[in-house]
């Protein structure tokens, strides 16, 4: 261990203190949300919950899972699972195919095709033309939502850059063995691109899981995803100024819904995080 001089030591102490403070600030809203979701009605309405739960009860959580608030909540939850599952699959398939084709050096019109994709990163038609386009293509049902969203130029380029770095020797060996392009893609490229694939999957899945505005705008009540319902529950809670006869506070209900909506993200996150820090850094996209 090398000796630290005074300024280094002071800086290190400051670093530890501030990083810890930052992390606690990051965690606080999550801990607070859990506490609010499971605290007693009186403690919540009087504002006695500051960090840890007070008078623990699970009525709000129960109401959402099996109680009288469960129906619309679960419908929207299933919708979100549907959008995330099929949507991510759809986006990944298109992006991987495109990235594979673009990584080929002998692709004809390669520059032109890359340009068509990159152009969408500089210029978008705008919100109103986009909306008119969705209307004219009848993007107003659950499959429409799957098809109309999801492929992003950035992710295609990220995958393409990664594919380009894959050793050509192995690929040529596979060609000699008579492998087709589909086989090369699925059996050579994909197993060697785990971190890039994990990053892109994470980005696409999160966009689907977290999407709000267009889902709210384009599809109707029973097809609304979780985020739209969650927003509705928040609105209702803030506008309630009569004392309800539920055994939990309306605020607890919102926090319970929040917690239930982020559980899948929190569960998947630790497994994917080791990939995306690497994936983000290869995203130094260049033509």
């Amino acid at each position, binding site marked *: 261990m090398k000796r630290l*001089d005074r300024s*280094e030591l*002071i800086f290190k102490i400051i670093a*530890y203190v501030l*990083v810890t403070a*930052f*992390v606690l*600030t*990051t965690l606080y*809203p999550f801990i*607070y949300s859990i506490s609010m979701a499971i605290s007693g009605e009186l403690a*919540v*309405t009087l*504002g006695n*919950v*500051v960090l840890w739960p007070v008078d623990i009860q699970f009525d709000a959580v129960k109401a959402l899972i099996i109680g009288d608030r469960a129906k619309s909540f679960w419908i929207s939850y299933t919708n979100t699972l549907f959008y995330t599952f099929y949507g991510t699959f759809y986006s990944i398939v298109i992006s991987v*195919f*495109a990235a*594979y*084709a673009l990584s080929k050096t002998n692709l004809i019109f390669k520059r032109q095709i890359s340009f*068509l*994709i990159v152009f969408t*990163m*500089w*210029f*978008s*038609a*705008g*919100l*109103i*033309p*986009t*909306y*008119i*386009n969705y209307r004219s*293509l009848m993007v107003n049902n659950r499959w429409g939502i799957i098809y109309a969203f999801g*492929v992003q130029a950035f992710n295609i380029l990220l995958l393409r850059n990664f594919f380009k770095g894959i050793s050509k*020797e192995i690929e040529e*060996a596979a060609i*000699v*063995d008579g492998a087709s*392009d*589909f086989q090369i893609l699925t059996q050579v490229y994909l197993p060697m691109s785990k971190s890039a694939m994990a990053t892109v999957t994470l980005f696409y899945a999160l966009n689907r899981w*977290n999407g*709000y*505005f267009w889902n709210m705008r384009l599809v109707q009540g029973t097809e609304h995803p979780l985020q*739209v319902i*969650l927003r509705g529950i*928040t*609105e209702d809670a*803030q506008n309630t100024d*009569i004392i309800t006869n539920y055994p939990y506070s309306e605020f607890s209900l919102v926090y319970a819904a*929040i917690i239930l909506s*982020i559980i899948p993200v929190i569960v998947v*996150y*630790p497994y994917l*995080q080791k990939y995306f*820090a690497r994936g983000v*850094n290869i995203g*130094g996209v260049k033509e």
Partner: protein
Amino acid sequence: MKKAIKMNEEQLKKLRDEEILIGLEKTRWQRYWKLIKKNWQVYLMLIPVFLFFYLFRYRPIGGILVAFKNYENYAETIASSDFYGLYAFKFIMFGPQADRFWQAFRNTFTLSTYGLFFGFPIPIILALFFSEIRNEKYRSITQIISYLPRFISTVVITSIIALMLSSGNIAQAPGVLNSFFTRFGWIEKNTPMLSMPRYFRSIYIISDIWEGAGYGSIVYFAAIMAISPTNYEAAKMDGANKLDQIRYVTLPGMAPTLTIMLILRVGQMLNIGYEKVILLTMDRGTDIYKTSEVLSTYVLSLGGLTTGASQINFAAAADVFNSFIAMFLVLGANFISRKVSDTSLF
């Protein structure tokens, strides 16, 4: 694997000869056709992405015509409405409601300038601090936690903000942050902070930092880690204390990353996420618009996508204006980035 490659060298040669033969075809198109036939699977793979980009990225561009037409109802077709020329542009910029347009324009720049001023340095400082933590376990745990908010939805974040800042009513005590601020005498009791124009920018920017600073530090952290430790040793030999080391070793070492990130950020100045603004300000009265309405939310509101009433062609005109300025900002930023650092987004 190496052996297999050697054994098949002849076959490889045959493959390459085939490509040379294709190169000898008479016309360009014959060559292309041969290439496509040879690698037909690759071209098949391009069909889905072409379809997607045509339908959902290029097809909407035709809709820009709406800005130049008398298009008042989404049920109309664009072709059937009359041509209006630049009327809609004149109306929004100089007409009786021009103030609202310019206010949205100013708000967009004010919000992103503040965001840049406060939001840009914090991930850098955070990355510096992370690099000081030599206990690997503690560092990776704190880093992982700090990225987390980036993965939480805007709806969840704005809901938490709304409840924590809520001013309370008969049935519910004020939110935890609201009572905290009251206790410290920063605000009056029961102030509805989210409905007041003066607090909007701080709320927006502070929550943005909470959300993105950890994730934003990834890039800078990688840049700091790439600096060779011998540089620090050399600086220490010359008697540099920690601040000198940061100034003369760390910052110059991460200069390329800093430049690119700054330029890219400037390029994104106009692209303020409308989702967060809408979610923070929906149903909070119109007073809040004084500071919260940005160009994109102005377009959505005028276009009837967040409110009932709509003046679609006016909204589209503002939209076109926004898209083009945004494009020039991005292109300009990219151009400068390519000049100064050889690195660019495209």
